[in-house]
């Protein structure tokens, strides 16, 4: 059997071994794979980076623990970036199973930066009817949320003085696992003209690109890859998504290498005949 024919008929166990190594080794060896940053992620990052101390940003955490792996890194990175710059955050959680998870995240990051509820951030929590809540917040945050998640009145909070509705926030960055994303685009951006950027799961990403050219959203982060791109821009210490993405990249390269080997073998041995 010629060399090229061998390339075509490698024992499957070699393939298995290489895949195993490709997945296992990157878990141990610290190295980075460059992530090519797409413009739609960069525009989110550039926007957050352009915020000044004291500016207010609205972050929507509308997912539940089942999609944490993809969306949590985005929320985490953006919140850290904001707190480091002294940007004040208003955070809502409009997914039924999400508020507890979002609360953990908020308290974790606020402790890291020693930020205080009501002064540096305001966690609103959950209200049913997301579409209605989003519309009502366009009038006044206090309609759906007279108090925050912890039961503190919004009027008593220093950071909420003079903050009525979306007019007083720079933008909304919404982390979405479902149709609530449409409501942010249609209601918050469409009706109240507040800039919206989305972080969505990998499967949803393809459906939301269409809102970019019409500027209905000014940025989009899709799945693990979008999260890894954002992490590579933010250059923070903890990079959950990058770690996972690194393994995915190596594994995909491995699969592609095998496809190439098979095809090279196929063409070269055909040419010989």
């Amino acid at each position, binding site marked *: 059997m010629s060399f090229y024919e061998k390339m075509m008929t490698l024992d499957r166990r070699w393939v298995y071994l290489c895949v195993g190594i490709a997945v296992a080794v990157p*878990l141990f060896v610290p190295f980075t794979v460059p992530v090519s940053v797409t413009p739609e992620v960069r525009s989110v990052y550039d926007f957050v980076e352009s915020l000044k101390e004291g500016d207010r940003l609205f972050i929507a955490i509308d997912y539940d623990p089942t999609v944490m792996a993809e969306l949590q890194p985005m929320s985490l990175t953006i919140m850290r970036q904001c707190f480091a710059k002294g940007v004040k955050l208003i955070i809502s959680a409009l997914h039924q199973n999400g508020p507890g998870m979002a609360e953990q995240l908020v308290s974790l990051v606020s402790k890291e930066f020693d930020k205080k509820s009501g002064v540096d951030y305001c966690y609103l929590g959950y209200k049913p009817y997301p579409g209605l809540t989003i519309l009502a917040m366009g009038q006044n945050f206090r309609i759906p949320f007279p108090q925050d998640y912890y039961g503190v009145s919004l009027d008593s909070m220093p950071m909420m003085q003079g903050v009525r509705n979306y007019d007083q926030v720079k933008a909304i960055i919404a982390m979405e696992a479902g149709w609530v994303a449409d409501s942010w685009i249609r209601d918050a951006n469409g009706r109240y003209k507040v800039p919206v950027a989305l972080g969505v799961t990998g499967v949803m990403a393809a459906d939301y690109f269409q809102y*970019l050219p019409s500027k209905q959203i000014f940025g989009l982060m899709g799945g693990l890859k979008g999260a890894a791109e954002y992490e590579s821009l933010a250059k923070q210490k903890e990079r959950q998504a990058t770690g*996972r993405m690194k*393994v995915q990249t190596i594994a995909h390269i491995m*699969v592609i290498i095998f496809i190439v080997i098979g095809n090279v073998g196929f063409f070269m041995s055909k040419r010989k005949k």
Partner: protein
Amino acid sequence: MSSEVIGIWIGAILTLGIFSFLYKDNPFYKFSEALFVGISAGYWFVVTFWQYFVPKFWDNLSLAYSELLTKGRVDYHWIYLVGGFFGVLMLLRLVPKIGWLSRWSLAFIVGTTAGLQFTRYLESNGILQVKGTIMPLDLTYPKPFIAHTGFIITDILGTIWCNLLNILYTYSHWVLVVGTFCGLIYFFFSKEHKGVFGGAARVGVWFLMITFGALFGYTVMSRMSLLIGRMDYLFGIWLGLY
């Protein structure tokens, strides 16, 4: 040692047992497989029994029975006996002479679900798909984000590529309609795939292949994630290496 630690060890050893199948079939795998089959069949029976049989059958009938005893009236919960009747007929298969009675149960299940699926799929796979495909053949599909994303169009290749993508996006509706149409022609059974008709069927096959390739490529990521999860279990939770 806590039961958790023992459990993790057992899980890890069985995990390795299944992985060993990649090399070749061996006693280690056979053991894991045999245990897996037994436990899963037992688990499934127990769960179905407590979560379906008891609440749906037993509880309803005991309710009917207690109504009869206390109030002396026959209430509608006795209707669950019909399910039990068909169930018992099913078990009659084990009695060769009257085993044919189990056909009644099969007839009931298959007939009911056939009636159910008939309207359901006519709607979801027929009417709604046609409605979704009826779209104006205009060129207003959202353009790609070439302008938006600031592609670097410095050389000729870049320009050609950008124009190509633009054309693809511009004719999206055409491609969608033509693709669906040709795909349907491929599935046409009354005529041999020859001539113009065969050509259209061929285009249909191309569309099918694009879909299959895309689905395959798309799935690789989620399959790799599963393996990463197992590696985490072995190296992280079991061995505690990171």
